[in-house]
């Protein structure tokens, strides 16, 4: 093996080409991080515009069609370009190999290929906006999607292509976890973030092809008129909904599992405490990955699905909720008697528990059949999934990004401004979405461009909140970019973490470690490290 210079991965090679053709998982992870945040801000601008339009009951600067296109793009960009790849493709790519003591992922070239496939998918998706953006909602329900004259084919093609990127990343991670662990890194010495990425990869590989096939069938129906979903051609529109949610419900767990993994890392490190119920946490990730495939029908409670099917899907939905609840309790138990360091990443972890609990309990309302009938397709559902996806995944993602920012970039961000941003984001988020629960249970349907006058004060309140939320993100971008250029140099281990990524320099050296680390203790064994005798 050739000798690798002991030099940080930023400086090892330079120039644009050294990035575009890199096979280093860290660089690929960072490039993903850039694109993913770009997508987030694009989707975020759409969201701000939507809220602004909803300030008045009859709209004021968009046509019906433009509004429909905007909420579709907001959903499609946030789901396909941002939240599905978010944690695995960026932080996962960067840290999965390091955390198991590997030099890289199992297939570095494939990794770069997934990145470019993602870029191509993004180009298609964003390109579709220029040639007549879709107005179907990100769910593309038939027969509306087969009858609209907007660019459904381009956008579904984008989702189809992005699916491949997701599948390939999943394959790569599975292979990496199976084959690349350092000596002594047994399965139960793996950090929980790695476990969660493993479970996520399983879902990505098993579920994403179903979406691909479904979208392909939709495209075939639209182009050569074979009747699959469109009743006027002899198809069944509800079949589309089954196929679609067979992917898209498990996709919810593609979004949340890695976030839960990050939570375990941050809570353990900032509590200086071994994680409570490690094995249970690892197994529950796998349990979620399996049960997640059996609950898609809860999106079809009012579609005309049989009441027995509804009964079974309702029951299974409760089952999948239990492991998530257990995780929350285990994090709490981890904090108990810990030494809690209230740094920004930990504040995001606290925000996660707060918001995700609201997202979780409101899910219980929606799984209760009788109650769901009233609440489905209202703002209650909109609020619920934003509490889970933003309150859960996005909080953990931002927290994780701060947690590892010093490691990835080698610079410290400004702690004061980071806390200010965290507070604004937390506050703004609640202002936008909490009131939407009430709007929903009061009867306000979702995807409405215009609404009854009586809902105006509630809508306006939500819109004002969106400005606070937007401001929070603005502050965040400013101090993060500032830190890249002017930040203090980060030490190798700013938070005194004990997983492997803290044993290499910040930023890591070219092949991650000068010398492959020895695995001497469990990932969260603070007792061993702190040397104090615990009873």
């Amino acid at each position, binding site marked *: 093996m050739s000798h690798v210079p002991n030099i940080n991965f930023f400086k090892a090679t330079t120039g644009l080409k050294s990035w575009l053709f890199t096979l280093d998982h860290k660089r690929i992870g960072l490039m993903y991080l850039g694109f993913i945040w770009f997508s987030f801000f694009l989707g975020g601008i759409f969201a701000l515009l939507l809220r602004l339009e909803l300030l008045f009951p009859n709209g004021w600067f968009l046509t019906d069609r433009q509004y*429909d296109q905007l909420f579709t793009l907001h959903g499609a960009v946030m789901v396909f370009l941002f939240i599905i790849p978010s944690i695995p493709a960026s932080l996962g790519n960067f840290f999965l190999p390091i955390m198991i003591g590997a030099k890289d992922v199992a297939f570095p070239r494939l990794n770069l290929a997934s990145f470019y496939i993602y870029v191509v998918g993004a180009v298609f998706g964003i390109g579709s906006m220029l040639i007549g953006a879709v107005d179907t909602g990100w769910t593309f329900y038939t027969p509306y999607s087969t009858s609209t004259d907007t660019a459904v084919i381009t956008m579904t093609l984008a989702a189809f292509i992005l699916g491949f990127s997701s599948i390939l990343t999943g394959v790569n991670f599975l292979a990496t976890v199976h084959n690349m662990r350092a000596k002594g890194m047994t399965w139960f010495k793996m950090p929980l973030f790695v476990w969660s990425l493993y479970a996520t990869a399983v879902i990505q590989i098993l579920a994403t092809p179903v979406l691909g096939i479904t979208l392909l069938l939709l495209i075939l129906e639209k182009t050569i008129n074979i009747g699959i979903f469109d009743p006027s051609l002899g198809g069944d529109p509800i079949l589309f909904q089954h196929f679609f949610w067979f992917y898209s419900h498990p996709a919810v767990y593609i979004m949340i599992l890695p976030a839960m993994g990050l939570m375990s890392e941050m809570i353990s490190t900032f509590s200086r405490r071994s994680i409570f119920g490690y094995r249970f946490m690892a197994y529950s990730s796998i349990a979620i990955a399996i049960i997640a495939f059996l609950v898609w029908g809860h999106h079809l409670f*009012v579609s005309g699905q049989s009441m027995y099917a509804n009964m079974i899907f309702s029951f299974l939905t409760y089952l999948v909720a239990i492991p998530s609840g257990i995780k929350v309790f285990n994090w709490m138990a981890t*904090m108990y008697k810990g030494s809690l360091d209230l740094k920004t990443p930990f504040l995001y972890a606290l925000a996660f528990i707060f918001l995700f609990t609201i997202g979780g309990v409101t899910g*219980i309302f929606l799984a209760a059949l009788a109650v769901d009938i009233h609440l489905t397709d209202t703002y209650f559902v909109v609020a619920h999934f934003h509490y889970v996806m933003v309150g859960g995944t996005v909080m953990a993602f931002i927290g994780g990004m701060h947690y590892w920012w010093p490691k990835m970039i080698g610079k410290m961000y400004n702690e004061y401004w980071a806390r200010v941003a965290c507070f604004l984001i937390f506050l703004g988020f609640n202002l936008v979405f909490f009131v939407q629960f009430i709007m929903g249970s009061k009867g306000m349907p979702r995807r409405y461009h215009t609404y009854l006058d009586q809902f105006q004060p509630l809508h306006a309140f939500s819109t004002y909140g969106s400005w606070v939320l937007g401001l929070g993100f603005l502050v965040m971008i400013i101090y993060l970019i500032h830190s890249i250029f002017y930040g203090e140099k980060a030490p190798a281990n700013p938070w005194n973490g004990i997983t492997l990524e803290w044993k290499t320099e910040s930023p890591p050296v070219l092949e991650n470690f000068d010398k492959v680390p020895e695995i001497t203790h469990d990932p969260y064994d603070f007792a061993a490290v702190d040397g104090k005798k615990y009873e």
Partner: protein
Amino acid sequence: MASATSNLSLVHSGGVNFPLAVGEAAYRVDALYFFIYFLSAVTFFGIVGALIYFVIKFRRRPDHQIALNQMTHSTALEIAWTVIPLILVSIIFVWGYTAYLKNIVPSSDAKEMRAIGRKWSWTFEDPTTGLRTNNELVVPLHQPIRLIMSSEDVIHSLFIPNLRVKQDVLPNHYTTLAFTADRAGRYQIFCTEFCGDGHARMLANLVVLDDADYVKWQADQKAASSATLPLNELGKKVSTDQGCFSCHSVDGSKSIGPSWKGIYGANRQLVGGKSAKADDNYLRRAIVDPAAEITAGYAPMMPTYAGKLSDQEMAGIIEYIRTIK
């Protein structure tokens, strides 16, 4: 009540969470909702309370740098917080399912009505009277209703917040919605499945009338529909409602029956070699006693409409046929 012109406000009626409940289904939904609400509040405040306590109590301080213990698991605790939630959600599941069944299964004495959705309006019909209304569903108070729904184009969904009922309306399949309203008044109906540009304007009203008002409403409707329309338009409407156009065209093309185009005043060849001039009386006979004179070239397929049409309507149809030249 029948005189109220605007719908009961959703935001300003009922409590903080719901619009006013006006039927059994709604009471069941609300009861379960508040049960879950209570459990959720206990869970949420329990968790947040503990978080705040931990943050204050175990916050890192100069004299508290490392954790006080490193407990890695506790089987008893883990079983407790698996089993207790499992029991609670099982209760909610059974409650949710049984309430759902009661809500969707119509009672045996339910009055059947039809709803048809299209981009972007609703039509409701009472098949027993043939009364048809657009964007307004009128039902008697306390009367169980079973709506049989279908769509002419994409998927829609019919949602009545005050009754807490909702059901998708499909293009290839009938779906049904059961409800009983126990308070007279006007209520909002929404479309809740995205269906394009006019989705947010695909609104309708539910009008619940007590018996006296309902009878009066029906009479008014009948009178209005016959009194206000010009005769030939009334004829066109009645022909449409009665389904004449499934067998007759107005453009001269032959269907199951002869086209109406140009028949008024013409000489008609009948089976048996006779012929007759199609004047008002001929046409009237053709409608109330079609078997008496069969037009040559056609099978005696036309049902009789004796007793189904008022004099006014009959006159309307004949007048309408006269205008089709």
